[in-house]
Each structure stands twice: as C-alpha cells, then as structure tokens.
C-alpha cells in the first residue's frame, strides 16, 4: 500500500480525467439542458420539460415496455443461471463440455445469430413445427405481442454465460463438508440448494441480480436485431424513444427522459439493496 499522495497521480489521472470529461461533468451539465427550452434564448422553464415528457405517450410506452421486458428478463435470467450453476457445480469435472456450451454464447456476437432466430421463429419454421407436433396451433412469432418471446430468448441465450460464471465462482468457495453434513441429516437436493447454497452466496447473488437488471435495460439490442429499428408497439423501448428524439436534435427531451429514468433505476436499486441488507441480517 503506497501512502505518498503524489505517486498515485500518473496512474489515476488519465482514467479519472476521462470519466470526469465523458460521464460526470456532462451529467451535471445535462441537468441544465433538461430545465431549459432549447430555443435561441434558451430560457429557463423549470420542470416543464419533465411534465411534457412524462405526458408523452411514446415516452410512456417506451418506459412501460422497458420495465416490463426487464421484469421478465432479469428474474428468469437470475433463476435459470442459479439452477444451472448448481447443476454444473455438481458435475465437475465431467461438466467441462456443458460449462463451455453455456459460457460460449456470452462471447458470441448475437448480431450474427439473429438470422438463425428469424428462421427458427418463422411462421413455417422449426418452433412452429414442434408446436404442431405437440398438438398446438402455429403462432405468429414475428409480430405483435408474440415478438417478445424470441427477443427474450435471444437475450437469455446471450447473457446466461456471464451470470453462470459469477455463480460458479461463488459456489466453488463453499466448503464441501457442509453438504456432507446436510446429506447425513437427510436434506434433499433442492432443500440443500435453497437452505445452504443460496444464503452463503447472497453477496455474489446480489451482484448477479443487479447486473441482470443493468443488462436487461439494454434489451434494445435484441429488440433491434429481431424487430428492426422501428419495432412493433409491444417492443418499442425507451432507447427507441431516445434515439428518435436524438435524431430530431431534441436534447431537452433526451436529457429529460434519461434523468427521469435514472431516478427510477436508482430508486429500484436502492430498494433492492435495502432488501438485500434485511435478508442478510435475517440469515445471520
């Protein structure tokens, strides 16, 4: 640990300067934008922009869809990756093939895979074939409300690997003797997973959960891949709204929408953090 202050500067300054220049300073500068009217005089209008944007139906639609999609994506991503990591952890070392097949998609460009997705979910494609074999009717996957399923699946395909890696790392740190004791006591596998494993990995699990949310807010990527730049209404996300406003050079609305969203996100994360604190206190 170095204590002499001047020594740190060459290491710290380049990165810090960039963060201040690209993230922090304009973040506060942008607040001014969201409070002015963007005309030549740039008059101060208070919270008028906020009121306008909140009442804009496209903003409401984008926000609603973004929230709904992330509410579907992040819990399913979290649960799926937890169950998978527990299974994978039990299969070591024979599970190397399985582990690789789960991790590999995280490094793959989902952009290149979207064509396969469009094929699979075509009206005459394999997914509908399987549905018909199971005695169900065909579904119009590539339009309207149903479009959400392929989008969510592409998101899960891509993001599963990273969550599994973090979970696996946490799981491998748990001493084996705990499980041996639980087995002697006759605890079943699901019981062990939820009573021993889950409480012990709460800190990592919390990180995974938060990262699931942060990634789920970026679902625009998958929406763009499958729904294109102008998707149907059920897929119109906040990013679509912001890109639209940005294209019109309406910086007032862009900043206003972003800060409204930031407040919401931090309220959500604050709540999650508070719940995690309480849960952890309950466990110890």
């Amino acid at each position: 640990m170095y204590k002499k202050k001047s020594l740190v500067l060459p290491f710290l300054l380049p990165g810090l300067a960039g963060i201040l220049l690209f993230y922090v300073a304009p973040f506060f500068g942008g607040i001014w934008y969201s409070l002015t009217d963007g005309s030549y005089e740039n008059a101060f209008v208070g919270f008028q922009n906020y009121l306008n944007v909140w009442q804009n139906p496209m903003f409401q639609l984008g926000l609603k869809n973004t929230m709904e999609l992330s509410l579907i994506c992040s819990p399913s991503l979290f649960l799926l990756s937890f169950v998978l990591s527990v299974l994978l952890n039990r299969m070591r070392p024979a599970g190397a093939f399985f582990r690789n097949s789960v991790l590999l998609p995280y490094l793959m460009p989902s952009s290149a895979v979207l064509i396969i997705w469009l094929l699979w979910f075509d009206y005459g494609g394999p997914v509908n074939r399987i549905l018909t074999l199971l005695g169900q009717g065909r579904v119009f996957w590539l339009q309207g409300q149903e479009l959400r399923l392929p989008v969510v699946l592409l998101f899960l395909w891509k993001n599963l690997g990273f969550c599994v890696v973090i979970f696996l790392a946490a799981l491998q740190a748990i001493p084996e003797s705990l499980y041996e004791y639980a087995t002697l006591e006759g605890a079943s596998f699901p019981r062990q997973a939820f009573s021993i494993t889950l409480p012990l990995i709460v800190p990592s699990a919390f990180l995974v959960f938060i990262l699931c949310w942060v990634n789920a807010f970026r679902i625009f990527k998958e929406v763009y891949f499958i729904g294109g730049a102008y998707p149907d209404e059920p897929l119109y996300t906040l990013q679509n709204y912001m890109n639209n406003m940005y294209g019109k050079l309406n910086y007032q609305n862009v900043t206003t929408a972003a800060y409204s969203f930031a407040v919401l996100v931090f309220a959500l994360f604050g709540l999650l953090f508070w719940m995690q604190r309480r849960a952890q206190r309950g466990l110890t």
Partner: protein
Amino acid sequence: MRKMKGFRLRLAQFLLLLLAILLLLPMVQTFLYSFSSIGEMKAFMKTRGSYDETQWMEAHLIPNLVSLGQYHQILIADHTVLWLFVNSVMYAALILLGQALIIPPMAFALSKFRFPGREGIFFGIILLMLLPFQVTMVPNVLTLRSLGLINTIWAVILPMWFAPFYIFLIRQFMVGLPNELIEAAEMDGAGTWSVYLRVILPVCRPILGAAAALSFAESWNLVEQPLTYLAARQELQPLSTMFNQLASENTGFEFAGAALYILPALFVYLFFQEDILSGIQLTELK
C-alpha cells in the same frame, strides 16, 4: 462437492445435454449453412414469411451441395461485407488498446494507493457502472458534441476507454493481492512503475485476460453506440449493426458473413476460457 448418482445424475445430464445442444445450435447451423451455394440459400430464405397454413419451410441442416460460393462472394467478388468487418476489427482493436492503457493503472491506483477521495471515486465508479446505457449515453453525447466528434469513429471509441465495469472488475482483483508483493519489490529498489509493470500486471494475468475477453465481446457486438452516434455515416458502421439488413435483403451470403463474424469471437473464447473462469473466481465480487 457431493456427486449426484444414478437416475438423478442421468436426468440432469440429459437436460443439460439438451440445453447445450440448443445453445450451440445457432453457431453450428450458421457454419453449416455458410457452405451452401448462394442459389440454394436464396431459394431457402425466400420461403420465409409465408403465412400459408399448408406450407412449411424445408427442414434441413446440411447443405445439399457443399460450396464455397458464399465465401467467394464476400471475400473476393464483393467487398461490402468485408469492409464492414474491417470496421468492426478497427473498433474492437482501438477500444481494447485504449482500455489496456487506461484501465489497469486506474484499478492499481484505486487498490494499492492510499489517498484522500479514494473511496469517493470508487463509489462514483460503482454508481456509473449501475447506470443503464440510456442514461450514460446522454453525458457522452453532450461531451462528444462539444468536441465535434459526433459522426466520427471516436464517438464510439472514446467513451468505451473509461468503461466503469472493467475498472471495478480489475480493482476488485487487485485489492485481493497481498501488500507484501509490493513491499518486497520496493526493498529491491523498484519504483511505482516498475512495480506495476513487473509485479502487478503479471500476477493479474487471469483477470486481465477475463476483462479483455469480456470487453472484446462487447466491442464486437456494438449496436447502440454506432446506431446513435454514427446515424449519418453508413460506411462507418460495424458489421454487427448490419446483419438484420443483410437478412432482409436476402442476399444469399448472409450465413458466410455471420460465420466470418463468429469465428474471431470463437478464437477469443478458446484462448481466454481458462482466464475467464479463474479470473472471476479469484476476484472479490461483493
């Protein structure tokens, strides 16, 4: 860890195998289709989007006739895809280069130096890391605009150099390194830079590998930034934003393009797979 036995193990293995096949199939299918002739693919892709109840798309996995026609088209005959691919390589290379020069030193500063404001800076980085792209995009745009960099490649590259997530990741790894490492090197008369280059960087190999692989995956799949910052510059787009256009134009060589794009990512994975697992495992992620 207790091993599963008998029927339960078989069942778990069967389910995992099914999942593994499903997860790998998109890549396998892309590679297989990339060896069909252009004519065959065009005819096949044309059967998409038919809402006739009596019709199915032909279910095939293996090309009827193995051909390098698609590759010939994108690599030799028509260079459009190739140029977009070169753009992607340029973005990934410049982003990773800048990150390599800026992020590990900053992580070192935030883990092995004591100075006032350190905790505050680190807390700020965590907050930034948690902000969704829609929010951080705004300050980025404001700065890029006043620097006149919108619609240039630097609009995509520069903000990525300071990506908070990788600072967090590497910092968390470095915090776990024993201080004795530095003290021993100092006894031998090493200055901060030589400690950083000769002691810290070599022991950080796993996390640096993991961070490089993760950052590559992000840079290779850029969508939001080029679409927003380079909206007016079609020729500067990376290949990742152009696939759905390729697919809708029914060019017949979209699968060779996709295979070409998957290949570098595959090599990166094979090269860094050990680092990803051990790097994350050795990092204090709490």
